[in-house]
C-alpha cells in the first residue's frame, strides 16, 4: 500500500492509495498526491474588496474572486458548505481556468486583484501559488481569505505571492475550534504571526455566534493578543452570525452583542474595529483613532465617502492611517 502523508496543513493526513485527504480534493492516485482541482474553480465572481472583508487594502477595488471545491475545516455554521464540504468530482459546475486563463479573465473584467476565497484556498495551494506568481508578473495583487489552518513552511513560501489576507479567527478558544470547526487554535495564531513576519497586510475577522464565542472576556483576550502580536493598527472585523448549515438552532447575533464586542476590542487597544454583516452600522466605517474624523464612510460593501489625503493621512490631524490604499 503506497500511502502518502500530506504536509500542507496541521491535520497531516496519511492517505492510502485511492483515498482523499480530509479536505476531499488532495487525492492519492498511484502513490502520488494529486491536486485534483488545480485550474478548475467551481465559483467565480467579481466582488468589491470590502466583501472579503478588506477595509484597508485598495478600498472599492473590484476583485476577481475564485474558489474550488474542498476545505480542511468543517465548520458547523459554514456559509459555503455546498462548495467547501464536497470533492471536485461531486460538483455540478467546474470551470476550466488554468492560471493564464484566470489572469486573462481578471484583466478583461478590469480587476486589479485576485481573491482566493469562499472555501479555504489553502487546499488548492498549488493553484493559488501559480496564479499568484503570474498575477504579480502582470501587475495584479493577490488576496487570500482563509481560516489560516496551514503549516508554517508552506505558508512562508506562499507569502511570496500574497499581498493581503483576511484571516478568520473563529474564536480565542481551542475548545470552540475543536467542537465547531474540527480544527485547533494554535496553528491559526502561528499562521497570523507568520504572515505578519512575511509582510502580508492582515485583517482579522471574528464571527460572533451567540453563546458560543461572544464572551467579553474571550474577546478581550483575543483583542489583546492581536494588539501585541500583530499590532494595534490591525483591523478587526466582528461579523454577524446567521443560522445556517448545521447550526440553525441559534439566533442571529444581536446588534448589542456586536456593539459590546467592538467597544471591548477598542478598549483593549485596537484602533480599527469594524462591525460586518449589518447594513448601515456606524462600525462599518473607518475613523481616525486620534480625533475620530470619518475617513472612509461605508454602506454595506459600498464606499460612500473617502476623506483620506493623497498620502494616506487623516485630513484633520495628519495621522498616518495603516493600510495599502493606492
Amino acid at each position, binding site marked *: *500500500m*503506497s*500511502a*502518502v*502523508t*500530506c*504536509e*500542507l496543513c*496541521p*491535520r*497531516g*493526513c*496519511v*492517505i*492510502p492509495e*485511492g*483515498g*482523499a*485527504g*480530509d479536505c*476531499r480534493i*488532495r*487525492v492519492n*492516485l498511484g*502513490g*502520488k*498526491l*494529486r*491536486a*485534483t*482541482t*488545480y*485550474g*478548475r474553480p467551481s465559483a467565480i465572481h467579481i466582488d468589491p474588496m470590502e466583501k472579503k472583508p478588506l477595509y484597508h487594502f485598495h478600498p472599492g477595488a473590484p476583485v476577481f474572486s475564485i474558489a474550488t471545491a474542498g476545505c480542511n475545516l468543517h465548520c458547523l455554521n459554514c456559509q459555503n458548505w455546498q462548495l467547501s464540504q464536497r*470533492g*471536485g*468530482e*461531486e460538483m455540478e459546475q*467546474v470551470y*476550466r481556468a488554468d492560471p493564464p486563463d484566470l489572469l486573462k479573465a481578471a484583466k478583461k473584467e478590469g480587476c486589479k486583484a485576485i481573491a482566493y476565497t469562499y472555501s479555504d484556498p489553502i487546499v488548492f*495551494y*498549488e493553484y493559488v*501559488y501559480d496564479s499568484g506568481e503570474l498575477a504579480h508578473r502582470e501587475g495584479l495583487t493577490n488576496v487570500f481569505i482563509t481560516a489560516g489552518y496551514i*503549516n508554517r*513552511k*508552506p505558508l512562508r513560501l506562499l507569502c511570496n505571492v500574497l499581498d493581503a489576507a483576511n484571516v478568520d479567527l473563529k474564536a480565542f478558544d481551542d475548545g470552540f475550534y*475543536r467542537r465547531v470547526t*474540527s480544527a*485547533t487554535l494554535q496553528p491559526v495564531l502561528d499562521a497570523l504571526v507568520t504572515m505578519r513576519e512575511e509582510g502580508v497586510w492582515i485583517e482579522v475577522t471574528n464571527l460572533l455566534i451567540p453563546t458560543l464565542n461572544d464572551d467579553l472576556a474571550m474577546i478581550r483576550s483575543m483583542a489583546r493578543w492581536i494588539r501585541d502580536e500583530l499590532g494595534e493598527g490591525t483591523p478587526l472585523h466582528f461579523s454577524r452570525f446567521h443560522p445556517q448549515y448545521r447550526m440553525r438552532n441559534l439566533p442571529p447575533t444581536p446588534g448589542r452583542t456586536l456593539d459590546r464586542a467592538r467597544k471591548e476590542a477598542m478598549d483593549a487597544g485596537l484602533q480599527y474595529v469594524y462591525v460586518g454583516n449589518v447594513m448601515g452600522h456606524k462600525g462599518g466605517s473607518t475613523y481616525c483613532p486620534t480625533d475620530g474624523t470619518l475617513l472612509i464612510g461605508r454602506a454595506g460593501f459600498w464606499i460612500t465617502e473617502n476623506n483620506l489625503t493623497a498620502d494616506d493621512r487623516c485630513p484633520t490631524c495628519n495621522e498616518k492611517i495603516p493600510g495599502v490604499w493606492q
Partner: protein
Amino acid sequence: MPHPTVLRYLIPDRTMIPLIKHLRPRDLRFSGLVVVTLLTIGLYLNTGLRLAGQSGSGWRTLDLDALQQRVETGELLDREADWYHPATEEETLGLGERP
C-alpha cells in the same frame, strides 16, 4: 460543625434507610451494570476525542470512478501536489479501512 442544611444532605434521609436495608443482590448487580455502562461510555467518548485530536488520522474515501471520469474529460486535473511525502511505516500504523 457543618451547617444543618449541609448535614441534611450528608446523612441519609429517614426514608432512604429502609431502602438501603432492603438492598437485594439484584439491586447491587443492577447498580454495577449502571456503573460499567457509564465507564464504557466515558472510555468510548474519551477514545474518540483522542483519535480526533491526533494528527495523521484524517482521510476520506471518494468516488474514484467519478473522479477518473472527470480527469479523463479534463474537468478535473491529475496534477501532482506539492507538500507531501511517501508515508513512513510508523505513519501508516493505524491506517484502517474506511467504509
